[in-house]
């Protein structure tokens, strides 16, 4: 049972896109989750709504907006093209952008739950012991929130692996270039006689998700026990 080059490409592209998607979303998502859980400022609800928009919008619509903004004639796309010579539409990096935007709300939600479970009174105690705001975050808040960060990152990875609607609208379905696993499954479904390949890819994506989840669990428990040993 040998995988076809097209399938191998799709699998590697999906993994690459998902990793980059998580890498790019991580810091902004942590920051926004922290701000939403700890700070009270004007426009907090608005920010909350904006972050959650990709969750409620049909993915095709998100993809359409991305296309408008990032195509070579789009508002941001033209700017990127003129000054940096970068095109994201119909490029694998566009798939990263689509996956990142779609998984962002999920990551923010998971991180926010984590921040909310850290008792602010502990931060006050650290403050009284001489820590400044940054050190409080680094030595108290962050270590206590790490399990939630891992959960959120895995959630973001899984969502990126499965992203389909926005991706196919924004970067299309070009084998070897922008074809991720879900797009490949979609293509195989369109053509007759590909049942076997479809099932194979479905099983593979299932396997990848399970492995990712398992790694995250191991990582989370290791980190929390190392934290305890200190």
């Amino acid at each position: 049972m040998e995988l076809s080059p097209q399938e191998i490409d799709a699998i590697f592209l999906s993994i690459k896109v998902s990793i980059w998607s998580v890498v790019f979303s991580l810091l902004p998502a942590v920051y926004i989750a922290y701000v939403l859980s700890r700070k009270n400022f004007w426009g907090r609800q608005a920010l909350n709504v904006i972050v959650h928009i990709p969750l409620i919008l049909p993915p095709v619509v998100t993809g359409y907006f991305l296309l408008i903004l990032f195509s070579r004639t789009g508002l941001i796309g033209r700017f990127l093209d003129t000054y940096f010579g970068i095109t994201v539409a119909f490029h694998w990096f566009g798939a990263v952008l689509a996956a990142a935007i779609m998984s962002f709300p999920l990551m923010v939600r998971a991180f926010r739950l984590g921040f909310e479970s850290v008792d602010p009174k502990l931060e006050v105690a650290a403050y009284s012991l001489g820590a400044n705001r940054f050190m409080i975050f680094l030595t108290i808040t962050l270590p206590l929130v790490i399990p939630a960060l891992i959960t959120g990152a895995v959630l973001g990875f899984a969502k990126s692996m499965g992203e389909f609607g926005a991706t196919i609208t924004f970067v299309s379905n070009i084998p070897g270039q922008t074809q991720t696993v879900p797009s490949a499954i979609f293509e195989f479904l369109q053509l007759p006689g590909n049942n076997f390949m479809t099932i194979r890819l479905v099983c593979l994506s299932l396997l990848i998700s399970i492995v990712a989840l398992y790694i995250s669990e191991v990582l989370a428990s290791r980190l929390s026990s190392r934290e305890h040993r200190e």
Partner: protein
Amino acid sequence: MSINVNIDKIMGNFYLKTKFDADIGITAIFGPSGAGKSTLVNLIAGLMKPNKGYIKIFNELVFDSEQKINVPVNKRGIGFVFQDARLFPHMKVEANLKYSSRFGRRGQLGAFSEIVEVLNLEGILNRLPENLSGGEKQRVAMGRALLSNPKILILDEPLASLDEGLKSEVIPYLEFLRDNFNLPILYISHSQSEVARLSDKIVVLEKGSILEQGKTLEILSSFSVAKKLGLRDLSSFIEATVYNHAPDGITELDFAGSKLFLPMIDTPLGRKVSLRILAKDITLAIDKPQKISALNILKGEVVEIILGSGPGAVIGIKVGNHKLITRITQRSLNAMDLKLGKTCFAFLKSVSVATSDIIV
């Protein structure tokens, strides 16, 4: 004075206005819940900003509304012990104790090993907070605060979440802190017995204002404070020394040369204990009563008679150099013809002294 506080704070309908000084030793900030104790402490610590006024710690302004001085919490040098201990759950006891040293706060009050020794923490240094008892947590919290090299210490109801047994386990450490470190300590509490036991000075707060301040025992047994806090709680606070545990379950104590008999107090002989005796539990008689069930009969002299607006009166009886307070009706007062300087007998049922009013 090592702490001078003169601040106003408006929070919605609540108006806090306080002016007091505190020195080395324990000053109790006392009052019912909602009196503004926590607000006051947060203002002193810098967690909240007063609308007006100043806070001086050892003659250094840490807050002044006119000069626009507002030193942040981490620079104020205030050691905090919270009611809920607030140990960092992801760090072992040792890391908790050493936390402040990461920020250059090396203890001048005592080296790590000394603090660990006096608070008896050697055996638990490698444990996580989740594996500590309530009393142990408070001891670690005290150690952590002491090791942060504070100029003053704020203890915010450190015993409130502990049961009676654990309280008497922690109190000796608090006394040690008071007697062996030259630190001004603000002790926040709503428990009269605790405050009577630990503090020399008291600031009584009510609805955001200072009702009274002065020597703890005098203030706590004063009529004016009791009138505000509820006359039912008017009490005398006395100290007595345990000299015998009788086989019939009675502990015998020496009180100002007289004997006191109370239900068994689980403590070694020779130990001083603090007692709170509610004024309503003391009965007066002119002649020494015979064949009476009350075990404690104390001879004294009437030194104070305060007539309330209702039918009651508060009588102060001097026994040795202590004062016992009792509440009787004005009808009894007249019938007994009590006058200042008159000798009388105060008696008290042993069983009316509740365990929670005895602090070992």
